[in-house]
């Protein structure tokens, strides 16, 4: 039974670059925690510090009850799965899976048995005598998993293990890894830059940016109650539309548009009243925007008039890009340079007939709007 505790940990490289700032995280026993963030946010560094592959500059790292700051990777009782799998190309699948056990001087008979069990669990029994070069990407990924499983470690550490797979296989392996983790009940830290992976796999998700923890919570809470503009924009696809707006009584005004906020919004977010007369950042998720001609009943003050730039028909929905003459807010995601491009994205009902160039009335589910402080970018609640 193992928990992982990261307590006020810093990582400063010799060139004085600080990759991790005061990171504190508790991973409970058997929990699947996902570290997510854009490239360069320090998520892999954090994971490698847990593994012992990077030294900790300050703070304390515990695996179980043991402080592991100065303990070698091999003595931390962890198993790691790498992005490129790190299989030994000259060894067979069986030798790859059993390598750690061989090093631990486990009797040959037991190695064979444990390798066979792991192979069966991962549907690799037929591949045991092959070399990694003869396997498909998905099979190699499973061998890497097998190598981790067979050791029966206290924790799994996975560094973007699905990044090298094609989209379809990734979806399948996502489910396989989740199932396996639940079946084995091993504490897992999983690093990814893909927010869909993070949302679908994690019991909890920790969002990092520039080496700082932004928020850690269940996927649904992250989605419904993002702590700041960055998390709001990072979680969800297409990402949340963010723009600057002025709060005037129970109305918000952005560009030439006005929306009326219901009383419930102010009841949920008592702190919002204090911003009356000020500029704030308003966020609206694409699924909270729809073609007004398909919405009934339509309440007053819940629509905005615009012109459609582009539509992408996906069958189950139409992703519509439309103009919005309000100043966009920059969520600060280095991976999405055009986040602050202006305009907005909506997920329309597939019955919508609007096409590029059409004038459209967009219905806004005002109850679901998000509000952030313009200066601090934090969510406005109390």
């Amino acid at each position, binding site marked *: 039974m193992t928990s992982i505790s990261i307590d006020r940990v810093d990582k400063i490289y010799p060139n004085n670059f600080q990759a991790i700032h005061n990171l504190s995280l508790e991973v409970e026993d058997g929990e699947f925690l996902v570290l997510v963030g854009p490239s360069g946010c320090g998520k892999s560094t954090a994971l490698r510090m847990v593994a012992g592959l990077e030294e900790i500059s300050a703070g304390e790292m515990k695996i179980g009850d043991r402080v592991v700051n100065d303990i*070698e*990777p091999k*003595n931390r009782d962890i*198993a790691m799965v*790498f992005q490129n799998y790190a299989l030994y190309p000259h060894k067979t699948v069986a030798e790859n899976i059993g390598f*750690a056990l061989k090093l631990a001087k486990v009797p040959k008979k037991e190695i064979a048995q444990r390798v066979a069990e792991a192979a069966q669990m991962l549907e690799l029994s037929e591949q045991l005598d092959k070399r990694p070069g003869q396997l498909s990407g998905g099979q190699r990924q499973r061998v890497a998993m097998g190598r981790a499983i067979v050791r029966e470690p206290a924790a799994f550490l996975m560094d973007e293990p699905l990044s090298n797979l094609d989209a379809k296989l990734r979806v399948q392996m996502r489910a396989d890894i989740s199932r396996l983790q639940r079946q084995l009940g091993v504490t897992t830290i999983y690093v990814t830059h893909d927010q869909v992976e993070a949302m679908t796999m994690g019991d909890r998700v920790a969002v990092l940016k520039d080496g700082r923890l932004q928020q850690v919570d269940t996927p649904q809470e992250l989605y419904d109650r993002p702590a700041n503009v960055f998390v709001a924009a990072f979680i969800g696809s297409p990402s949340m539309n963010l723009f600057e707006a002025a709060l005037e009584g129970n109305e918000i005004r952005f560009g030439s548009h006005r929306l009326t906020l219901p009383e419930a919004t102010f009841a949920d977010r008592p702190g919002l009243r204090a911003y009356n007369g000020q500029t704030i950042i308003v966020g609206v998720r694409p699924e909270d925007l729809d073609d007004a001609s398909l919405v009934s009943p339509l309440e007053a003050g819940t629509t905005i008039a615009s012109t459609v730039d582009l539509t992408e028909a996906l069958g189950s929905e139409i992703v519509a890009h439309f103009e919005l003459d309000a100043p966009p807010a920059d969520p600060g995601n280095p991976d999405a340079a055009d986040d602050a491009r202006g305009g907005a994205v909506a997920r329309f009902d597939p019955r919508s007939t609007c096409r590029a160039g059409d004038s459209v009335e967009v219905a806004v589910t005002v109850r679901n709007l998000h509000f952030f402080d313009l200066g601090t970018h934090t969510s406005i609640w109390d």
Partner: protein
Amino acid sequence: MTAAQEAPVETPKRQPSMKGTFKRHKLLTYVVLLAFTVLYVGPLLMLVMTSFKSLPEFFRNPTGLPESFGLSNFTEAWELAKFPSYLWNSFFYTAVATAICVVTSVLVAFPIARGYFKGANLVLTMYIVALFLPPALIPQFQLILNLGLFNTRTGFILLFLVNPIGIIILVNYIKSVPRELDESAAVDGCGYYRFVLTIITPLIRPAIATVTVLHAIGIWNELVLPTIYLTNDDLYPVTRGLIAFEGLYGSNWPQLAAAVLMLMLPMLVLFLFLQRYIISGLTAGAVKG
């Protein structure tokens, strides 16, 4: 429509000229290749021809075909150049020095390639600089003399233990091996030397084969150093035996040719045995990225 109509008209016009240029290029390529083949194979063929001729026949007709293909030159050269005892010396020097050089080179190249110690790049630069330095014959000679290793097997082997080009080849090849393997092995509990010798070494076989062949051929064919450092007849390598064919008034060219052919045979076998690795070893940096 216009574009579609124009296309078939243009294509036949352009094709003949393209084909013509291509043919001319090909012809030029063949001419250049042929010239180089003659340049390389010519002397080798002449060596083979010479090795079958008697001395008078060689002086009568140095470049033509031999009258008969007898092996007398080979058997006589075998005895005269003391092949049986010198061959063993050559094998010993080449095998021991190459083995030590390759093993130590791998152990040196790995931490340099990974930057696992401070100043790794500086050390590599020094190896590269060493490539351009002239051979330090006199200080080296003094060193061997002062160590009391002059005219000894150990002293002679000591001369061949470092090969800068070998280090550079190995460093570049090791760089193409993913670093995650090191980390994965560290997590698995694999020790440093075990990792280098059982994981890295099999993965860099092409580079090792290349360095082995380059180094072994260098030692095997060395004539100057054995002449300087060895004075005892029992210690001579086979190249030193070739001096037997140099007479006061002229050399016995056919016997020398036969001896040279016999001399190159072991290295040819080694090369043929390792050549499938060597090609990929030499081109590794270019294609592996």
